[in-house]
């Protein structure tokens, strides 16, 4: 990795407290352009909280977040999304009464700033529909394009989560356990799709499935009790006895 490039996303001393409980403390995290970085750590380590901080769902109690050269700490959730920060949720957060197609159409409209257009009927926006169909096709959701989201099986809803994030054509993609609930063969495919995204997109993903983590990440950060325990290549991490002890158990063996 060339050190000269400015990182896409960088945090400095980031922390948040819930009352007396420090969920995230003093995190310095760097995401290079084109990164394929995994964030792992025990349950309750603060991974989701960290993503919530990055996307602006939560306000940090300390520290700052930079996107490129810009300090985005004060920006709201939606502003951050509009400048290229997309995410998926650990627990499905979809539009239950819309169809997958209109969900994606909506996401594209929001991305292109069309969503405040009130004078032009939706159905005239053919390019948007074409793009939405293409995206659904890539995630093999095209057959379900017109089924209400609420009637989709869980796994399909997981896919739609990712489709929604991808529809935003983000610069940075934050994925919170994207493959949870997706069958193994499909989760592999899913990650293929993700890793084939243009190289200028930086990706940070949380995942408890070590097969996926070790297959698709180029760097891994380990979060324990709210702070970064260690960071390194998959090989380093798999060999780290502390990580094994608190998180991997024997699962890392195969990747050691």
């Amino acid at each position: 990795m060339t050190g000269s490039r400015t990182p896409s996303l960088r945090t400095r001393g980031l922390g948040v407290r819930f009352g007396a409980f420090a969920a995230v403390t003093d995190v310095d995290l760097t995401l290079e352009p084109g990164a394929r970085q995994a964030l792992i750590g025990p349950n309750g380590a603060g991974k989701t909280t960290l993503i919530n901080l990055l996307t602006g769902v939560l306000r940090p109690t300390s520290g700052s977040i930079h996107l490129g050269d810009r300090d985005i700490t004060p920006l709201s959730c939606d502003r951050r999304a509009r400048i290229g920060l997309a995410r998926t949720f650990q627990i499905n957060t979809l539009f239950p009464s819309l169809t997958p197609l209109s969900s994606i159409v909506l996401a594209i409209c929001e991305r292109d700033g069309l969503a405040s257009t009130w004078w032009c009927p939706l159905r005239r926006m053919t390019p948007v529909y074409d793009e939405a169909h293409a995206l659904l096709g890539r995630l093999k959701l095209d057959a379900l394009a017109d089924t209400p989201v609420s009637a989709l099986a869980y796994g399909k809803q997981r896919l739609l989560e990712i489709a929604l994030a991808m529809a935003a054509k983000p610069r940075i993609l934050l994925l919170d356990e994207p493959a949870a609930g997706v069958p193994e063969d499909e989760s592999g495919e899913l990650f293929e799709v993700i890793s084939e995204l243009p190289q200028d997109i930086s990706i940070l993903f949380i995942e408890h499935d070590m097969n996926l983590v070790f297959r698709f990440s180029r760097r891994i950060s380990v979060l324990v009790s709210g702070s970064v325990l260690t960071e390194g290549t998959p090989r380093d991490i798999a060999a780290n006895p502390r990580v094994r002890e608190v998180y991997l158990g024997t699962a890392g063996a195969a990747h050691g």
Partner: protein
Amino acid sequence: MKALTIPRDWLPWVEALFWLALACSFFLMPDKLTLLSQILIFGLFAVSLDMALGYAGILTVGHAAFFGMGAYAAGLLARHGWAEPFSGLLLALIVCALLGYLLSYLVVRGADLTRLMITIGVCVLLAELANRLGGITGGTDGLQGIEMRPVFGRFAFDLWGRTAFFYSFGVVLAMFLVVRRVLHSPFGLALRGIHDSRKRMLAIGSPVEARLRLAYCFSAAVAGVAGALLAQTTQFVGIESIGFNRSAEILIILVLGGTGRLYGGMAGAIVYMLVHDVFADIDPQFWMFWLGIFLIAAVMLGRGGIMGMLSRLVATRGAK
């Protein structure tokens, strides 16, 4: 129960038929024209509420604030010498859009119950203000002495309510088409998205509050036009136009018709007001009992109001 299926391409024709039937009621019920005009007006009012409630998800029991404000705006304009009808509508629209935009800052934040109470509070405060400013508004005695000029300078408002009917019909249809267009636009889709999941909307970069403010402002403007129509066609503005009870009544009408369904407001107004009229004619003292039973029966038989029931009976199929 098997649903009747109609191709989706037919829907615009069904809509056209609906409006045609409404227009034809002029010949079918020639001595109920005032009722029909008021049904149209309340239908429009309910549709405006639906934009806020059914689409933007802002639980409000204070929408009469805009209805009443529109009525007073149009009424006062006419009363003070400018009695041309369309300018009254325009004034009401502008005033209510502004008021709606201002109030939207109070309303879009917070949870459902908060919004409910804030809208009620604002509505009650405005009603109280109208009462206090009795010198201008006539207070509880109502604003009298409105005499509208003929529509297009030709059609005077007559005793039979013919002009009032056509005037209301035209304006309501025009406003309805605007609302329909808005709801079928990307903005309308965004509203449905917010209704479903605010969190997800934020995550796809939607400035949710701004969207809601715009929707609320729209909705207020349409409600204002409805209020202005009532003021102009009755040539009177009662303080009830702006009160809590009217807000609650229109909510009942909308819920009966079905929220978030575009035609829910119109359907609700037609059914509620006709049923009310029939029951009140049969039994002026205890029509409330029968209306209550009717409402209970309506909920028990079909959730989601009349349109909800219809959508279960009639399915659509075909291309989008």
